């Protein structure tokens, strides 16, 4: 199907519908989610638009709903689960809901303030109660003047100090801590102390007020105190009852509101969206017709038409809406139809730049090349297996993770299929590198064998073993190397060889260059597909052909050298280095001896270099010169028409010169960027080698430093130590090797796609298709 390989064909459509059916029609279109409304009033500011009052009303209602939701959540009332209501919000619903919301808000605010006042009274009464309780203990020192009150516990030392300073020790201060009762369910339990100060003078009251301590009048004699206590206790009981009733009433109101909360929320959202959309449309003079312009995919025109007819039928209007497709020169938005699997890959492409209209879409190829390049850098089947299982868990429990509403986890969940594929491909490359938690599997039997190195076959004796610390297996001794390479992957003997890295580095570097050149050639080929689609055959000859020939003659030849050297048997001491061969080829230096891989190497190389160098002026000059000639022809043709206006001729001539310089500069930049870019991008692909080396080394270090320490302990508690160490190994593997290395390899694979691959063909300067869609709004919640 064509639609995912490039973006869909869009059309601009004019809609005419009656004002009465506007709400229903836009509602239907919103449910369909396939049209993007164009702004027909681009000059007007937000508050000049027609329906700005209604939008404000909707925003006010949203605020009230948020307030309600906060209150409901604070009181721990469960909100019943979501149900989709298909009720269409009509304008009279707005007024109805608005009045209801206002009433609810008023009620709730009143209840809250009443409750706060009651609570305050309650606290005061309880404090008086405590005060009276401990007062008797203080009254061994009878004095006329005293002040009693309650102060916050942490302020008490400062209070005491102030009193000392004031009265020079001429006072008696007693305090006791209030032990909170179980029934007191204060919002924030603050520790308070009861205090009594026996002192002369009245300045004490001012000081107490400054400390935000509350004073209570306390009667002198015991009888009055007892009476006061009974009084206070009765009042406490009354208040408790009233508070309980208030709480119950509040809870009933909130529960009733909570039942409808979600339905109201979705209604208000839809209405706001509809009014917002109506703001984008034009209303004609008679106030009876609404004109809208929409972008819509050509293949969906029928469904849009059906939705509109449905909407107008629902509103009971007589006329069906008119759908009129118009031609336009404007660039349509880019629309790529995605499903839940492809949306992750499309979003990482769009993060760099949304493609031009109907440009080729790199996403389908990215679905394979991105996990593959990641896996080349990650390459460990044990870690790949853990990553795959983690991704599987994400995929299966997707809704549970989405409910957590954490941004990082949301990002992980959006990319769950990407992570799953990355893990699968990593298992594959791990099997190729024969690396599982830094150990190799020996499935088929190694092709190298040590026994033939001993006498009588080979040179080793028992003395050789005792003398040297390092021994070389010589493949020229018969039987050491069986002649058949290990069937799948790297031979496991390399895992225990000390020169493992010399072999693996050479292998991985050459492999990275081969993959890089292949990826870039694929990118250049995609540019050919673009040229053919846009009927730009001129550019095929002027840009595509020289680009391809340049890349093939230099880097294609490099690939050929690598593959040739791998396939042909030669003695390793006398094998020429490909790097030196390549450098000498560019410098035309054929003086050193024995530097040929095959017989006709010199003429072939000279030919290829000359061809590559010839491509540079072709790229640089051919296109501008052709354009110059075309402009001159046009100018020549238009000269008789411009002769009448001398000023016009001069202007045309000046503009011709300016644009020529522009074209030359642009083409020069493009040529330099491409040719130098070929070299630097090929070298850039060596990061595939670098990161896979880093990953392998980190994995080995983790095994050697963590797990091996526990494995080498064979005495008594070895197994317990092993169990503990394994937990540390697992945690470190996940954090360092999976998270850190995974992110690093992800980033580098992404960079290779965005820069090295896409700069060969992708322009990426379009704008994204954003349809009016109620489903999308609900998911974005």
């Amino acid at each position, binding site marked *: 199907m064509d639609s995912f390989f490039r973006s869909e064909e869009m059309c601009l459509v004019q809609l005419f519908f009656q004002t009465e059916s506007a709400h229903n029609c836009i509602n239907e279109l919103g449910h369909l989610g396939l049209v993007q409304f164009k*702004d027909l009033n681009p000059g007007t500011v937000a508050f000049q638009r027609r329906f700005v009052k209604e939008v404000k009303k909707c925003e006010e209602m949203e605020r009230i709903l948020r307030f309600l939701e906060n209150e409901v959540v604070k009181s721990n009332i469960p909100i019943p689960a979501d149900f989709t209501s298909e009720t269409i919000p009509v304008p009279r619903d707005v007024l109805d809901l608005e009045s209801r919301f206002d009433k609810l808000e008023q009620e709730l605010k009143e209840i809250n303030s009443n409750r706060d006042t009651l609570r305050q009274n309650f606290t005061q009464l309880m404090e008086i109660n405590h005060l009276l309780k401990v007062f008797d203990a203080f009254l061994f020192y009878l004095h006329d003047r005293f002040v009693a009150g309650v102060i916050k516990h942490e302020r008490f030392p400062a209070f005491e100090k102030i009193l000392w300073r004031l009265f020079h020790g001429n006072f008696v201060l007693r305090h006791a801590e209030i032990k909170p009762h179980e029934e007191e369910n204060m919002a924030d339990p603050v520790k308070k102390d009861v205090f009594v100060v026996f002192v002369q003078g009245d300045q004490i009251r001012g000081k107490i007020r400054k400390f935000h301590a509350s004073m209570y009048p306390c009667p002198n004699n015991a009888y009055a105190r007892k009476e006061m206590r009974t009084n206070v206790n009765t009042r406490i009981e009354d208040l408790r009852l009233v508070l309980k009733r208030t709480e119950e009433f509040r809870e009933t109101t909130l529960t009733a509101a909570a039942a409808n909360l979600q339905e109201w929320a979705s209604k208000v959202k839809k209405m706001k969206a509809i009014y917002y959309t109506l703001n984008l449309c034009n209303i004609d003079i008679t106030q009876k017709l609404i004109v809208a312009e929409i972008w819509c995919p050509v293949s969906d025109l029928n469904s849009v038409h059906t939705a509109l007819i449905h909407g107008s039928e629902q509103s009971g209007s007589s006329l069906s809406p008119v759908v009129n497709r118009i031609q336009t020169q404007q660039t349509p938005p880019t629309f790529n139809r995605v499903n839940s699997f492809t949306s992750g890959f499309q979003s990482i492409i769009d993060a760099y730049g949304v493609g031009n209209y109907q440009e080729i879409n790199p996403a389908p190829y990215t679905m394979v090349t991105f996990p593959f390049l990641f896996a080349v850098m990650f390459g460990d089947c044990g870690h790949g297996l853990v990553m795959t299982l983690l991704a599987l868990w994400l995929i299966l429990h997707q809704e549970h993770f989405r409910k957590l509403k954490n941004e990082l986890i949301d990002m992980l969940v959006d990319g769950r299929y990407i992570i799953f594929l990355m893990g699968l491909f990593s298992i594959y490359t791990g099997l190729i590198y024969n690396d599982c938690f830094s*150990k190799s599997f020996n499935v088929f039997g190694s092709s190298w064998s040590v026994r033939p190195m001993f006498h009588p076959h080979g040179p080793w004796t028992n003395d050789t073993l005792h003398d040297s610390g390092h021994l070389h297996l010589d493949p020229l001794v018969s039987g050491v190397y069986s002649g058949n390479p290990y069937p799948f992957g790297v031979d496991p003997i390399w895992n225990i060889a000390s020169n493992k890295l010399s072999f693996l580095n050479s292998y991985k570097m050459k492999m990275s260059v081969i993959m890089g050149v292949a990826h870039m050639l694929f990118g250049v080929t995609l540019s050919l597909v673009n040229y053919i689609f846009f009927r730009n055959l001129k550019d095929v000859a002027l840009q595509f052909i020289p680009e391809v020939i340049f890349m093939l003659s230099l880097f294609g030849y490099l690939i050929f050298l690598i593959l040739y050297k791998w396939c042909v048997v030669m003695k390793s001491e006398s094998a020429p280095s490909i790097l030196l061969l390549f450098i000498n080829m560019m410098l035309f230096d054929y003086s050193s001896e024995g530097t040929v891989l095959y017989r006709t190497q010199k003429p072939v190389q000279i030919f290829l270099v000359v061809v590559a160098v010839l491509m540079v002026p072709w790229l640089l000059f051919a296109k501008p010169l052709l354009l110059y000639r075309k402009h001159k022809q046009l100018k020549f043709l238009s000269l008789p028409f411009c002769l009448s206006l001398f000023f016009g001729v001069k202007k045309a001539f000046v503009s011709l010169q300016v644009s020529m310089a522009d074209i030359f500069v642009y083409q020069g930049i493009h040529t330099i960027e491409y040719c130098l870019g070929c070299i630097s991008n090929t070298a850039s692909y060596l990061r595939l080698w670098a990161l896979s080396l880093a990953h392998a080394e980190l994995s080995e270090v983790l095994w050697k430093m963590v797990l091996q320490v526990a494995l080498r302990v064979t005495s008594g508690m070895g197994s317990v130590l092993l169990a503990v160490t*394994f937990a540390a190994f697992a945690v470190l593997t996940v954090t360092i090797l999976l998270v850190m290395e995974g992110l690093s390899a992800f980033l580098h694979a992404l960079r290779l796609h965005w820069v090295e691959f896409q700069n060969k063909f992708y322009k990426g300067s379009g704008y994204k298709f954003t349809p009016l869609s109620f489903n999308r709004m609900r998911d974005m*919640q």
Partner: protein
Amino acid sequence: MPSLLFCGPKMAACGIVISIWGVIMLVMLGIFFSAKSAVLIEDVPFTEEDIRNDKNPPGTIYGLYNQVGINCFIAAAIYVAVGAVSLCQGHLVIARNWLNGQHYSFRFSSLDLHTNSG
């Protein structure tokens, strides 16, 4: 009776995951050690004397291999126990959550519409 629950839901989940991984990986390591795999030679604690003074080569090395293998199996058994404990804790957590009633929560955020400059 005091609750047997001592770790939260996240700890229980971590415990289950690590024990499953531990059991599988340690059992496989044990099998490979018992099969005297050459790739694991670095993990076996042999010394020069072991090789030189061996009456019946390579008997000592094989014995060491078997010892390490048995260590791995015992560690795997420890992880089976840890896994069972974590599973119990997980069940207790779920039971406690069910008893306390479940919470529905939904977040309502105001609409954020895109504008396009057409």
